[in-house]
């Protein structure tokens, strides 16, 4: 019964923590919630089936419950709180609040991570791609309708922002040329 325990550093949202005497078998989810008190990462199935604990591991979307925390020691862990500014995260958060994508909200932090990841990789993802790309994130309240509306709104906001950046960039380039 005595589990092997390990101590190791863990970098979450840019902060490096010292994890002390964690069981070797502890998942990243368990260490985040129980050792570091980072409860924005939700614990709903512990089988990688619901996406409530979605985080980025060196920029790749994973379910924290199916990653050993000790294996993540050398990686950058990004939770909903640490999503990069300048990417789609802000638009996604705003769209979730405005479009009614949140009811009980337990899936929301994981969804925001997964949607931000999807729109970062595929800013113009269509409905089929959104649906299949997010099939690993369960929402029991909404039936996904308002979440889809939020994702579309966030994608549109991203497209508008990108167009604005291009326009701003052109102006700058023009000014520089002059």
């Amino acid at each position, binding site marked *: 019964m005595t589990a092997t325990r390990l101590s190791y550093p863990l970098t979450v949202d840019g902060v490096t923590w010292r994890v002390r005497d964690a069981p070797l078998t502890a998942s990243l989810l368990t260490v985040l919630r129980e050792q570091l008190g980072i409860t924005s990462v*939700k614990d709903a199935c512990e089988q990688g089936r619901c996406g409530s604990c979605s985080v980025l591991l060196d920029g790749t979307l994973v379910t924290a419950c199916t990653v050993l925390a000790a294996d993540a020691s050398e990686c950058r862990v990004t939770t*909903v*709180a640490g999503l990069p500014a300048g990417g789609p995260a802000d638009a996604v958060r705003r769209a979730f609040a*405005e479009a009614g994508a949140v009811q*009980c*909200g*337990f899936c929301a932090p994981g969804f925001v991570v997964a949607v931000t990841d999807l729109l970062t990789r595929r800013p113009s993802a269509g409905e089929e791609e*959104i649906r299949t790309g997010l099939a690993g994130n369960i929402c029991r309240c909404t039936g996904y309708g*308002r979440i889809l509306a939020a994702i579309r709104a966030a994608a549109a906001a991203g497209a508008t922002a990108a167009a604005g950046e291009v326009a701003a960039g052109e102006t700058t380039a023009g000014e520089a040329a002059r």
Partner: protein
Amino acid sequence: MTGQTGAGQTGAGQTGAGQTGAGQTGAGPVGTAARRPDGPAKIAGTFPYAGDLRVPGALVAAVLRSPHPAARIARVDTAAARALPGVAAVVTAADVPGAQTYGLIVPDQPVFARDVVRYHGEPVAAVAAVDATAALAALAAMDVEYEPTPPLTDPTLVWDGAPRDHPPVHPDGDVFGEIHISHGDPDAHGPVAVSGHYVLGIQDQAFLAPEAALAVPAADGGVDVALATQWLHSDREQMAACLGLPEEKVRLTLAGVGGAFGGREDVTLQVHVALLALRTGAPVRLSYGRTESMLGHPHRHPARLSYRHTATRDGELVSVTARLLLDGGAYASSSPAVLVNAVTHAAGPYRVPNARLDGATVRTNNPPCGAMRGFGVPQAAIGHEAQLDRLADALGLDRLELRRRNLAQPGDVLPTGQHLPGPFPLREALEIVAARPLPPPPSGPVEARAEARAEARAVRRGVGYALAFKNLLFSAGFDDYSTAAVHLELGPDGEPIAVVRSAAAEVGQGFVTVAGQIARTETGLSAAVVTPADTSIGSAGSTSASRQTWMSGGAVRGAARRVVDELLARTARRLGLPAAVAREPRRMLAIIDGEIVAPEAGARVPLSRAVREALAEGPLVAEEVFRHRATQPLDARGQGDVHVAFAAAAHRAVVDVDVELGLVRVVAMALAQDVGTVVNPLALTGQVEGGTAQGLGWAVMEELVVERGVVVNPTFNGYLLPTFADVPDLDFTPIEIPQPDAPYGVKGVGEAPTCSATPAILAAVRDAVGRDLFHIPIRPWDLVGPRDLVGPWDLVGPRDRVEEGAA
């Protein structure tokens, strides 16, 4: 009037999103798409759910559960567990200081099993330890000797089956309830008859946040508990009894609730966590994992339905005979009330001149069942809608036409003798969904979305319709009420604010949004907050039965009106108006655009000043207890004015079925629903979309599988839930007719679409494959396996018979 406002199904959300800027989030009155006040915190991950609560020095609890569905407990030895390092307490049945049992309706469920266990997962002991590892080690060190006994798992052995050769499961008896409705001439029958039999599996609520609570012992010998629940006061009553404490020493606060759907109406971990806190003198937190959650709370009742409908050759219903057997599992939970709903809705929203509707809910060693969204009505809807299709086919009539000819109208007599209360725009709902555009035909292979790819020739398109009605609020004579208080205060910025206090459980449905909208509407203030629900105020009743917007909304409205009356009275006095005005201030004063105006006196006072000045005389606060009209319990013949009101819903489902692989894909869903006055179009859309998705889940994938009393799939690996890829866009049309006896004319909206979604999808799949599918959910082998698998539990007679001649 048909609300075309929402006809563009996604319109509610998109329109609202376009109209309301981020700065206005949460600020609208009744009728606007106000945003959730808790939305930003939930999105940021900072909203504290029950399982997120942490206090220094808190112990971690864990519960030991029976691996057997039926066993005698020969011995429970806790000595080794107690001796482990880090273990603070171990409690068993011997440590329960008060009542040994609890229950929503009858207290038949032990806090801990003492001599026998009656279901797989029944709690036997609980431990508190310094951390989760130590707690789990303590569970492993518990020495419990079980003597397994043969489980009673076939409910037909309890009711109407073969003579039983089995000792009772429980000394209270094994029939939780039995109802016999006799209406008109129950022996009458028409010349055309169809019979059908349906087996319904267990659906789990599968709310996303598993059960959790934090209990803190108090200096007065009581306990303060923060937890996720649907009904704080019911929990408190049951907890206090089991803890041997007066209710005022058991103080509950609602923590963040991650969904409920009925699954948090019962006591699960409440007594355990409080008992451990009292025993150890330390804070204790207890959180279930998914498997423990799925074993630990009651589910939707599995059921066996036998139906016989007869009609004239013109398609006029003559009689309905139905027998409904609901397996309540090991303990009563809300089984008797679920049965009332199932049987009183068994004939559906139709004019039925003659009926014999019998139902029972019985005890077995299967998992306990109780409340889930729809509460007995989804089971009935599966039966009556399948029967209507079957009857239409036997008559050679269009399935919708048969429904049109038999739909109940307001004033029609239901089988209970109750006159159907209006408004009841179900005919309108049917015509709306029938007229909605259909999706284009399948153009290629069904992609079961990366799961499998079938040959296009194996794909069959099907279209199905279902109608349902669902009672609103508590029924059958229950004294159903809600309490709320509204305070007018000054906020930190010195501006007036309406503060709403209520014990109504916000479980995700949006009551906090609605309560704020109502408070803003009634006070004219732009700022309203809803304080966390707790037991320092009277009961708000349960967050169930589609009741909180009507009931607690009514209480908030009443309290707000009273506190405004007081504000106006004080203002009238200060303005020097006659004493008669102060007694009935609304005769002369009104709140308009942020001012109190008294046109006859030529006075205008800004609301902020009026509140500030009125507060100088003392607090501005009013409380209201809201009740709906009284109902009656059913009498011995199943007669009574049993329900307050009904909501009506019509769904159309379009499916593609791969008849070689047995895969179903729901392609499109259309819903028209009787929703009363819309308080918040965005929240309404969210409720009906979510309700439809849960109905979809039960139709084609969700089943908690039980084999010889053992739950075999209590995980999200084994229990399938609808994903983003499974749930199509909902084409939703609200029908807005104010409900006369409800505040603002509201109607509960969350349950009706769950009742109609499942049978619509079942009808569509039957339409696609031409098979008589009787098992719900539909499984792949039901679509591709041998055809006739009907069981031996036929309760009303031979099946699939069209009789000619008899009159």
